[in-house]
């Protein structure tokens, strides 16, 4: 691959010839594929790493679902392979169940979804969509990935500790997490790496989006994908540091004997904690377990918007190009996503209603939680109305993108009884909560991620993915994923609690055990279905139909690169933008789309 030296000056508009070598040696393997500063390579690195962890995190849950469906039964085939801290004679241990549960959440949120939505899609697509040659800080970008990967390694390695990995939930509430085994310390260290990676990335995204847009690309001509990434970056930038602070404090508690989160007088197994031995070496007291919760949720609530916003961005692009008409309500989409970003910082304590909250604080947080549902509804409605008057092409990405809409609606609507304190009394910490947030991230965000992969795969690889396999992947996934999560609302209403190793131990949950079995089988079948995707992904790399530059006939700039797959520098010359991002079916034009950079 020749190094394309694009000495284009902004606004010059004329192409330089390529293919002539300016005397630079071709980059070696390491600097081209491993320590690359090119946003596309880094995007792919993030994407592949994240997909591996998405699969791993999913497998953790598949193992847990066996124990949930058939408590006390040895896990078939792989039961014997699990380490001693996780399973005994093939039967999952309670410690193992909790460990897998905590790591499932952690891996899915921090090692899979955010790196996919932001690290992979954001990195690869954003500079292309704004007509830039790379991110504003390419080396910082590389540093961001190389801070992410050690974080992943630390998290993964913690599975092999004698005491197992973290097992106090992804939420790591103290005092439980303070007195937990060493896996928790590794979790905290892993988090520090991951948070650093996010912070470096978010600075890059914001500067790039504001400063590096092609001429003519005003903020209100940006594709909604870019707006979503911009708001997401602000959330990452400002919300993660309090969790970093909290992680430092918990590390101090665990390692240096402080007691930020430990009140005095704790009694473990009839002994006052000052006298206990083990990991915990005694402490001074005076701390507050709720302090951790405030610091954690101050991040973790904006974090869930970090999970959904890139997905909304991806879905918007896929919908626009497959409806062959402009998105409805572009301005309301933009203002809603900005408002959503602001509001996400002031709702965090709705995760803490049951901690002993009084009326005044609960009214504040209920009100903000009700208010934040507004912009989400606006965005969903705008995307729905975008279907009106369309000419919908049911390509594989479009199948996933349209399915996203009702799935996200279910997720959002089921947040309503959780967002009000009185109804939350019954539903807090039950399967209802699990159903609610999974509908948003699983048939929500993950479907959007699939839509994005099917949509941009032709640009990244130059080949089309197989349509038949794609459609089969979609329909089966849609069926099974609803089979996994829909029963949870009924389980939750019956009072079945989450994080329960043996669901038959509690009478009120016994009666909905059948629903749990249905969830488990649906999950295993969902897992099998993903093989279709994995097969398609790798097979198409070699044998997919050649895609050409713009197989979807889309208008946005990423489809106007000089080469497909794009090379270093991206564009023959910096494009100039003459119109908005969704000029489809414009009256008076021969083609049913007018690319953004096409001359007026």
């Amino acid at each position, binding site marked *: 691959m020749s190094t394309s030296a694009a000495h284009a000056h902004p606004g010059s508009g004329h192409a330089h010839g390529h293919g002539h070598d300016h005397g630079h040696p071709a980059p070696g393997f390491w600097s081209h594929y491993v320590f690359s500063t090119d946003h596309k390579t880094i995007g792919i690195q993030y994407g592949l790493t994240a997909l591996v962890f998405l699969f791993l995190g999913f497998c953790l849950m598949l193992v847990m679902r066996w124990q949930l469906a058939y408590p006390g039964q040895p896990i078939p085939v792989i039961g014997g392979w699990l380490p001693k801290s996780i399973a005994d004679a093939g039967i999952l241990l*309670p410690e193992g169940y*909790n460990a897998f549960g905590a790591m499932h959440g952690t891996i899915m949120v921090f090692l899979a979804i955010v790196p996919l939505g932001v690290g992979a899609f954001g990195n690869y697509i954003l500079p292309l969509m704004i007509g830039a040659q790379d991110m504003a800080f390419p080396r910082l970008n590389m540093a961001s990935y190389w801070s992410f990967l050690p974080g992943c390694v630390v998290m993964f390695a913690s599975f092999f500790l004698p005491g197992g990995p973290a*097992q106090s939930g992804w939420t790591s509430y103290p*005092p*439980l997490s303070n*007195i937990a085994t060493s896996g928790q310390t590794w979790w905290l260290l892993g988090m520090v790496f991951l948070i650093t990676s996010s912070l470096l990335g978010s600075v890059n995204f914001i500067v790039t989006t504001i400063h590096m847009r092609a001429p003519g690309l005003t903020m209100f001509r940006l594709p909604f994908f870019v707006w979503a990434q911009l708001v997401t970056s602000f959330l990452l930038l400002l919300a993660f540091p309090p969790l970093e602070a909290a992680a430092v404090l918990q590390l101090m508690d665990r390692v240096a004997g402080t007691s930020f989160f430990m*009140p005095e*007088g704790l*009694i*473990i197994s*009839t002994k006052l904690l000052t006298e206990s031995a083990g990991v915990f070496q005694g402490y001074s007291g005076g701390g*507050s*377990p709720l302090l951790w919760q405030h610091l954690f949720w101050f991040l973790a609530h904006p974090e869930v918007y970090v999970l959904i916003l890139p997905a909304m961005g991806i879905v918007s692009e896929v919908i626009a190009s497959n*409806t062959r*008409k402009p998105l409805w*309500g572009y301005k309301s989409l933009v203002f809603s996503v900005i408002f959503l970003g602001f509001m996400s910082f002031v709702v965090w304590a709705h995760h803490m209603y*049951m*901690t*002993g909250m009084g009326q005044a604080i609960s009214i504040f947080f*209920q*009100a903000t939680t*009700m208010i934040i*549902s*507004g912009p989400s*509804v*606006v965005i*969903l*409605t705008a995307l729905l*109305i975008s*279907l009106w*008057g369309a*000419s*919908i092409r*049911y390509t594989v990405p479009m199948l996933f993108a349209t399915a996203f809409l*009702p799935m996200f*609606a279910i997720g959002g*609507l089921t947040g*309503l009884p959780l967002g*009000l*304190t*009185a*109804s939350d*009394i*019954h539903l807090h*910490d039950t399967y209802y909560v699990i159903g609610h947030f999974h509908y948003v991230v699983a048939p929500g965000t993950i479907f959007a991620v699939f839509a994005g992969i099917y949509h941009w795969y032709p640009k990244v690889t130059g080949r089309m993915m197989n349509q038949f396999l794609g459609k089969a992947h979609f329909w089966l996934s849609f069926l099974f994923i609803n089979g996994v999560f829909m029963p949870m609302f009924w389980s939750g*209403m*019956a*009072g079945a*609690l989450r994080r*329960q190793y043996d669901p*038959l*131990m*509690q*009478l*009120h949950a*016994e*009666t909905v055990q059948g629903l749990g079995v249905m969830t488990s089988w649906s999950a295993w079948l969902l897992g099998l279905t993903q093989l279709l995707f994995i097969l398609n992904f790798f097979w198409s790399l070699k044998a997919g139909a050649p895609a050409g530059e713009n197989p979807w006939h889309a208008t946005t700039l990423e489809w106007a690169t000089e080469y497909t797959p794009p090379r270093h520098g991206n564009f023959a010359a910096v494009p100039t933008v003459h119109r908005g991002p969704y000029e489809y079916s*414009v*009256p008076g034009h021969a083609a*049913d789309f007018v690319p953004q950079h096409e001359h007026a």
Partner: protein
Amino acid sequence: MTGAPYGRWSPWNAAADGVQVDQLISIIHWFMLVLFVGWGIFFVYCLLRFRSRAGHQASYALPAGKMSKYAEIGVAIFETVLLVGFSIPVWWRYKYDPPKPDRRQEVRAVGEQFAWNFHYPGPDGKFGRTDPHLITASNLLGVDFDNDPVAKDDVVSPTMHVRKELPVYVRISSKDVIHSFYIPAMRVKQDAVPGMEVPVWFTPIRDSDEFRAAIAKDYPLNERFKEKMLRTTMVSMQKYEKGGETIAESGQVISDEIVEKLKTAGTTTVRAAEQDPIQVVCAQLCGANHFKMKAPMSVDTEAQYEAWLKELTTEPQLDLE
């Protein structure tokens, strides 16, 4: 209320204020259904009507969206009504409207890894002093039975006994990590945070007998029933006798022996119910055995409650049942 207490949407409501929680949940779900069906109809219509086909063109013009604005405003108004008309008043009842001290039962509920212990103040109505240094395996709450006169009539028990129609005021705390005091049937849930003591209150309106009667089933005497007996104590709901000899009384705990005797007598099913149909469980992950952390709650009639108290000797006693 007819039907089984558990497994049909939400559990039986067994508390006086629980009905308000249920009402709110109900209203919200109807609202959710209306919105979803409304959106859904529009959605499916568009998917079909505007699918790409020969001779069909997308239209560049955007539909004027007055409907969506009205819908948005409607949603906002409804949510405000839910908050102000329902959630706030119910929360007030739960947090600021305790039963009067002269007509309520007092009990402290203390969570630990992995059990609940209940501290009753006894006839004098005052809780004896507790001291963490007095905690032993047989005095889990460290009640100063020896030196505090007020503690002499206190009772510490792993079972929660309350009376029907009498409000109970529960002071919830924890010895070690965060737990959560949760009784599904009473619509009560409160985190037990170490270093804090938070009160909850409720008034049971159904007693355990009613629960058992409603939950009773005819169980086939098979392996599955045996497995269930390993997890839960089952009681017989009727008298079984053969040839003049009583195999099991109504209300008697079913043991393996009784099962064998029933089988020998030719019976294939037994009408049984869980001895403790109402339980206090833990709703916040508290460690490996979090799933096992539960305590029976017995809603007694006056007579049953007095009988329970009498079972314990007059000495300050620990109920190790």
